[in-house]
């Protein structure tokens, strides 16, 4: 299994590399390490969210509220910072993770305790969380002047010529990868998605596992809320609108099965990176920005077709075993 999935990731990585190479022939600056790290940094939030969405999708759920969660947590962080600049950023980040986690828990509780389909729950909280941003902010923005310097500079501070934002993303990705591969919880996400009945029989509480998945995704979204606001130094109602579907698209492109149980952290991250590279490449090669949407749509469809092929392969073949035997 590991072999097959790795193949898919290598393929995706190759496609990304080819795109970068092609674009570089058109615009030499694109392939520079500096620009590549910039793209990575630019995609950091999407990659983190894709990790969060991955665990949710693995358990046969979906979280459409991640972008709204991000916006709400980001707004709260910005407002707290504006009101009390004395609070250290580290504490604020922890607070964001907690708030985001609570919002995720709310989704998870409805899914776990009331057994409401995740898509319904998060369709509801998608609008509720986004509306709450308006309620807490009264519709106004939090601007650069109102934010403390540390609040703004934290994500930009460079270490080994990579900004903190990228390092945080790398840390989150690494933690998710470790969790998925080496902890019982990570395996429980897979088990729940592949066969919930069997998971129950194996002693896994399926509802609780989903709840944990939503909580984790919410925590990531909360963290991303601060990172987003700090990076773009603006908090408004419209922050990250429409990002929820991009996160799902990243997972799909990365080979995560929407039916649950199939997908890797590497795939989700590469899916996000693919979208990031496309987004960054189009303006550079001078393709009209109006084509962006159509191209990413075509990319998603291609990826789905490709993935379905991969999933369908395998299985037993009676005649072949007969010939081999």
């Amino acid at each position: 299994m590991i072999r097959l999935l790795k193949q898919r990731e290598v393929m995706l990585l190759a496609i990304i590399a080819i795109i970068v190479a092609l674009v570089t022939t058109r615009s030499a600056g694109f392939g520079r390490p500096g620009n590549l790290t910039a793209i990575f940094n630019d995609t950091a939030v999407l990659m983190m969210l894709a990790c969060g969405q991955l665990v949710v999708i693995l358990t046969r759920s979906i979280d459409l509220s991640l972008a709204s969660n991000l916006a709400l947590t980001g707004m709260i962080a910005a407002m707290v910072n504006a009101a009390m600049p004395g609070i250290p950023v580290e504490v604020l980040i922890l607070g964001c993770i907690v708030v985001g986690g609570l919002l995720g828990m709310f989704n998870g509780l409805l899914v776990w305790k009331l057994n409401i389909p995740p898509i319904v729950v998060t369709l509801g909280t998608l609008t509720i969380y986004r509306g709450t941003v308006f309620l807490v902010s009264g519709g106004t923005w939090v601007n650069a002047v109102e934010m403390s310097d540390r609040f703004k500079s934290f994500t930009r501070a460079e270490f080994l010529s990579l900004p903190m934002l990228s390092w945080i993303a790398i840390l989150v990705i690494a933690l998710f990868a470790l969790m998925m591969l080496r902890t019982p919880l990570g395996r429980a996400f897979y088990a729940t998605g592949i066969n919930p009945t069997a998971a129950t029989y194996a002693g896994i509480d399926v509802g609780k596992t989903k709840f944990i998945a939503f909580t984790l995704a919410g925590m990531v979204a909360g963290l991303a809320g601060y990172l987003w606001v700090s990076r773009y130094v603006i908090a408004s109602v419209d922050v990250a609108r429409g990002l929820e579907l991009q996160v799902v698209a990243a997972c799909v492109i990365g080979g995560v099965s929407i039916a649950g149980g199939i997908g890797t952290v590497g795939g989700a991250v590469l899916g996000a990176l693919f979208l990031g590279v496309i987004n960054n490449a189009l303006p550079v090669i001078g393709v009209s920005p109006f084509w962006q949407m159509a191209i990413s749509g075509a990319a998603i469809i291609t990826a789905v077709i490709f993935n379905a092929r991969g999933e369908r392969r395998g299985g037993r073949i009676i005649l072949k075993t007969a010939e081999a035997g």
Partner: protein
Amino acid sequence: MTDAAETTHRHIPDRLDNPIKSAVLSWETLLVLVAVVIFILNSLASPYFLNAWSLSDLTFNFTEKAVIALAMALLITSGEIDLSVAAIIALASTLMGMAVQWGVPTPGLVAIGIGVGLACGAFNGALVTGLKLPSIVVTIGTMSLFRGISYAILGDRAYGGYPSDFSFVGQGYVWWVISFELVLFVFAAVLFWFALHRTNFGRQIFAIGNNAVAAQFSGVRVARIKFVLFCLTGLMSGIAAVMLTARLGSTRPSIAQGWELEVITMVVLGGVNILGGAGSITGVVLAALIMGLVTFGLGLLNVPGIVMSIFIGGLLITVIALPILYRMWRERRA
């Protein structure tokens, strides 16, 4: 088990429950109650609500979305979903606008709108049933693709100059305050109700939604029916595109942005099981009415649109959660 030894066959009754009682305890009853309560609250909260023209304007808030919701209800009942409906509107409207520039008259425009909708639906259907792909991701993809094509064609421009008789479709009144759109919707609702609840086609949709494999093994042409349902959803989106374009008299690529989620909310609020297999058109019509009442009522109180969306989101979760909580509470007592 004395009767087990008997050789005569034992009689199995048709049904045990009382149909009237189960109708009273149904989802639709809950929705009717919610609608009535909101109607009363609206009348109390705003002096402007109980007015024929207000109520007529109210219908414009939901008719186009509800027209799509009718088809979406069938599609979701069959276990699939289409997130690209709003993007289909954008593409259909764009191509209609393009046709206007070539001087195509109103009947031609209507045909183009509906035709494009149908073609987009067929494209979705072919991907889902032909290549056996999950509809939610396929339509996330086509959602970007269709609207993306619209952006690519129109860019920063807008199409206008629709013929004046075209506007009747979206703005005309058939009689007094009864708009053409409303009549169209009611007509479509009756058709869809009949199709889902009274025909073989509808029965097969329920069978597919509950267990597509077993339905296939029972001789139901699953792929064909699903394909038809995607086409139907595209077709209704095309009709909605005609209605909306005629109402706006202008086309921009951002037209109907975000409608897919509102349509799905309508369908789910209407009691259609998002996982497939259960649903009713009556519920969807009531849900459309409720959403219209809520948004219009809050609008009369000048509640900001985004706060309204909190109400809609909350309503969705509450209405779904209430029966579950009630059942849990009853089981705990028993």
